């Protein structure tokens, strides 16, 4: 997984199925990067008929002006459905990071050099917060913590400015839960030379 440097162009892809808040997660990352004065392009593709039921939203963050606006080899992939995994996971750049919902995705860590990180986002959302709807925000927290692509507090600010006041507390909790979840996963993770072992961290308290 690359250490993002000041001049690097970092490409992220969030994928899943409609209704999982994929676009919102990508938009929050893009807004956080915008507020930090970075160059940002965010695109998405939707339309289940045309795309086989998997939708994606992508973000490019850079210091220099961004020309070609599409993501083809993401440095960081977030995958929240099996269909999205099958369609998009293989695109992840060697040396990149693939974060997925271990409760929804059966991952095959065949892609050499890609760090696999499976976490039970949906389950944690339901068990810990009783709100499946914040799965995307928990996943976002984990993505930020594991990738280091943006400072965690900057993204938290973007989360909070996006949601209506009455949902702030819930989203703040969800985001921080995601950060902690990823920190636990990092401890548990082991890597091998020829590929990576997917790890599934237990949900805190379960």
């Amino acid at each position, binding site marked *: 997984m690359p250490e993002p440097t000041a001049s690097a162009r970092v490409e992220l892809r969030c994928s899943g199925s409609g209704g999982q808040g994929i676009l919102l997660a990508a*938009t929050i990352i*893009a*807004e956080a*990067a*915008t*507020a930090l*004065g*970075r*160059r*940002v*392009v*965010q*695109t*998405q*593709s*939707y*339309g289940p008929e*045309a795309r086989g039921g998997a939708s994606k939203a992508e973000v490019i963050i850079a210091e220099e002006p*961004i*020309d*070609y*606006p*599409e993501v*083809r080899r993401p440095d960081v992939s977030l995958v929240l459905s099996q269909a999205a995994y099958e369609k998009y996971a293989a695109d992840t750049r060697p040396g990149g990071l693939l974060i997925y919902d271990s409760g929804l995705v059966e991952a095959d860590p065949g892609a050499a050099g890609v760090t696999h990180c499976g976490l039970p986002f949906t389950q944690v959302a339901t068990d810990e917060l009783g709100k499946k709807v914040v799965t995307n925000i928990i996943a976002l927290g984990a993505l930020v913590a594991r990738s280091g692509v943006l400072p965690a507090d900057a993204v938290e600010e973007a989360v909070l*400015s996006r949601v209506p006041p009455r949902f702030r507390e819930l989203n703040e909790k969800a985001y921080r839960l995601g950060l902690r979840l990823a920190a636990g996963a990092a401890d548990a993770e082991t890597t091998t030379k020829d590929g990576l072992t997917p790890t599934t961290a237990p949900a805190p308290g379960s």
Partner: protein
Amino acid sequence: MAISVTEAAKAGVPVLLQGNEAVAEGAIAAGVRFYAGYPITPSTEIAEVLSRRLPEVGGTFIQMEDEIASIAAVCGASLAGAKALTATSGPGFSLMQEMIGFASMAQIPCVIVDVMRGGPSTGLPTDPAQGDVMQARWGTHGEHSVIALVPSSVEECYTLTVEAFNLSEQYRTPVIILSDALIGHMREAVTLPHPDKLRVAERGMPDCDPDEYDTVSSTIDNILPRPPLGSPFKVHVTGLVYNRRSGAPDTADPATAADLGRYLREKIYHHRDAIVRVEEVEMDGAEVAIFAYGSVARSAMAVVKKARAQGARVGMVRPITLWPFPTAAVARMAEQVRTVIVPEMNIKQMSWEVEAAVKGRAKVVDYGRVDGELITPEEILELVKPEFYYHRWEDT
């Protein structure tokens, strides 16, 4: 959003904005106070944003019964004195052609945004294309002139909307913005110009007596005024051939028709140098040029950077104004380079035009893609490489 687009522009801070949103906000900044439209992917966000924003600033939003009614209502609102906008995509743009011709003939300032998608017919509603560039030029019947602008970024969605209204007011003509599904739905971090720094052409009243009003020579600040309906000027507006000075219809005299036809063409073409904008990138010493517009110019830009980094002298000519065609810039390019590569998301629509302006002075290589996917830098690079047969390309 924590901060409004207008506040961000005033404060000079970057905001994350979608291309379609940027068109809507640019329209507000340009003084647009009327929008009529009909929902169609991928343009609908322009209507959605304006249905909220226009009433806030005292403007009017109407969702009409179809695109024909939408452009007709825009013509009516403009004649009543409002700066008026409509937005659509391919199928709706086809329906609007009749009234775009009316606006052209009757000299009604207005702006039409076509967020291009794959076609013909329903085609690829959510995917980008550039198949309407000739429809923008020749879609309506009869001899006419038109101005069409092509944004390549979210920022240009904003600034070119303001520019489109300035041109439409100045030349009293419909102006078309050719966006596409990619640019329209893409979000970018943009720092918008301060509202006070934007040049906004205002609608003026002729400063003469209504009896002395002459539709051609009564100008204010180089702008052809359009006295509104319900004013002492008691204008007659018609789609018939009319006497260009008095405005009275006259279909019996060939000289009147010839005079009007020439005038309608010349008021645009005579001012071509003032209207046409082209961005030239790395054209200094370029041996090969890429002629690319809209979203494809983003890929072309990536190729120019890659090629230059390897010492291959590649440049780009990017028309911001597609119509009138930037003939002079293309001629200049043809004198300089040995090859012009024209990648576009259609088959040869602009490359024919480029060839006509190049007049054999350089080789023109066309490359078209109509599958709803943006042409990639790699595809363009593969066209560039054979033009440098002596060059040893490193892996990219």
